[in-house]
């Protein structure tokens, strides 16, 4: 019996190639075609892989119609086990430590199980993979820290305010990044979202799409008396919010912090605003720098994750050899 994995990923193939091989559904037709006892298809935006258990060796070309051999990899036996454990743990992901892939692996396994593609070998292999992924996640810092602008902003908001449900957010400007950030905050439970823009129509549109309300752009600074989080991303040439404008507005809210996310270039908020007591100003560079730091920290954790995986591969390899696979 042979345990193998054939596939391609972001490491070996560009998006066009991955798109060409992306498939929906299960590996059942393939199982019948190549005569495997068990087969499972894992298809995500970053990888397309087939895991199979066959009584005789199967060529990769029988699994995929390969027109670019360099884009494909093949792992067998313990190497296949190690690869799956790395994938499930997020060590092989484009954004190291991301946890979405584990859900996708679980979905692929469920689909294979329901279609009869996953038998006793793949069942045992994937159950172990889920265990390994959980262990890597809990025993290392591989998933720590935010790695995108939106998630960094949300994480910082959480570090300042804790629970975000009762917080008031004002979005100034209706750009894509501010919309994504507003959505990320809304997903954390923020219910009071206000949007303002030079074009009131765009403000209304964005407000509707994020479940907020539009406010008048002419007096938007006044909102700083009330809001907890300000997201700014207009196309203004000069700063809209200066220390001189903001300081008097803060007098009524001396005991409440104000978190300002300035994702505009050129910047909407004068840098010296950060010197005001209780104001935490982050521009696009500082948010990106934090995202980069988090990613670097995650990469430092890869070795610790590999150690955990190596132990499990050794254990599982022993079982594989014992079961003559």
């Amino acid at each position, binding site marked *: 019996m042979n345990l193998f994995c054939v596939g391609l990923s972001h490491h070996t193939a560009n998006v066009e190639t991955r798109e060409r091989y992306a498939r929906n559904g299960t590996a059942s037709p393939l199982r019948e075609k190549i005569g495997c006892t068990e087969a499972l298809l894992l298809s995500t935006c970053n990888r397309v892989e087939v895991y199979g258990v066959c009584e005789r060796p199967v060529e990769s070309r029988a699994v995929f119609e390969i027109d670019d051999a360099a884009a494909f990899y093949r792992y067998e036996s313990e190497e296949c086990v190690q690869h799956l454990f790395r994938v499930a743990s997020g060590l092989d992901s484009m954004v190291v430590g991301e946890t979405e892939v584990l859900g996708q692996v679980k979905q692929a396994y469920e689909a294979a199980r329901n279609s009869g593609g996953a038998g006793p070998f793949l069942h045992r292999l994937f159950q172990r993979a889920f265990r390994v992924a959980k262990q890597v996640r809990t025993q290392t*810092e591989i998933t*720590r*820290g935010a790695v995108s602008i939106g998630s960094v902003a949300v994480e*910082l908001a*959480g*570090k*300042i*305010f*804790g629970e975000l449900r009762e917080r008031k957010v004002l979005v100034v400007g209706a750009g894509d990044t501010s919309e994504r950030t507003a959505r990320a905050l809304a997903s954390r439970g923020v219910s009071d979202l206000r949007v303002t823009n030079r074009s009131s129509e765009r403000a209304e549109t964005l407000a509707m799409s994020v479940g907020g309300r539009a406010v008048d752009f002419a007096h938007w600074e006044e909102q700083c008396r009330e809001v907890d989080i300000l997201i700014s991303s207009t196309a203004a040439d000069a700063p809209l919010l200066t220390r001189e404008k903001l300081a008097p507005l803060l007098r009524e809210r*001396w*005991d409440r*912090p104000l978190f300002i996310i300035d994702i505009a270039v050129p910047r909407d908020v004068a840098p010296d605003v*950060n010197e005001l*007591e*209780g104001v*935490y100003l*982050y521009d696009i560079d*500082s948010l990106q*720098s*934090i995202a980069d*730091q988090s990613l670097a*920290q995650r990469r*430092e954790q890869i070795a610790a994750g590999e150690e955990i995986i190596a132990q499990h591969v050794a254990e599982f390899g022993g079982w594989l050899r014992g079961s003559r696979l």
Partner: protein
Amino acid sequence: MDRQFLILATACFLVAVVRTLLAFRARDFRLGRFNFFAIALGFVFQTAFLAVRGHQVGRCPITNLFEVFAFLAWSIVLIYMLVGPAYRLSLMGAFTAPLVFVIQIFALLAPIDVPHQTSAANPWLEFHASMGMIAYGAFALACVAGLMYLVQERQLKTRHLHSIFQHLPPLTDLHAAIMRLLWLGFVLYTAGLISGFFTGQPLPRIKIICAVIVWIFYAVILQGRYLFRLTPKHVAALCVVAFTAAVSVLWGITFVSQQLPSS
């Protein structure tokens, strides 16, 4: 025998401190259970020390400076055990263990465990002293939370986010914890202060003045938010200053008390 319990307790806190340092060095900031259990075990030994010493002296064991510091350390850990997990401030253990360790090491090494001639047990006096000490425990934890607030605030302000940042509680949660600890300490301290007038013993003027100054200091911090528009950062900084001053006063009060024929 009783000192051995305190030595064991100090060893537990040392283990927690070393574990914290090693974990921080390895960039692992999930202190969690190990530190909590090390501190909890230390608390058990502290309690054993106080029980044995209390039995020996036949009253609440705060008859000399050594016992006062041991009781203070016990009060800090007591409050930590009560509020740390409740307010999800588990990292507070990383700050609390060194503080308690330093207090106990000082108590053990300094020549201050001198038997002091005391009068017969007086319930009011014991209530007064023990309430004051537990209040100090709450003020110490407010000081620890204040330090955590200042570290977190500094990191957020300067955008230099070290890994410890990821595990410090949110600013607003820390501020809420500081205010609760201050109120708890203030109520206990007030009860201790008032009960001092029912002890039936002459109170040294310097002792009353010092105690009232500490009380006013904390009252100002608690009401300063409205009176002087103190920001949460100011409150956090004042907690550190106030506790440092209060410990100095406590030392002074105990020193003065020991010069008197009985207390």
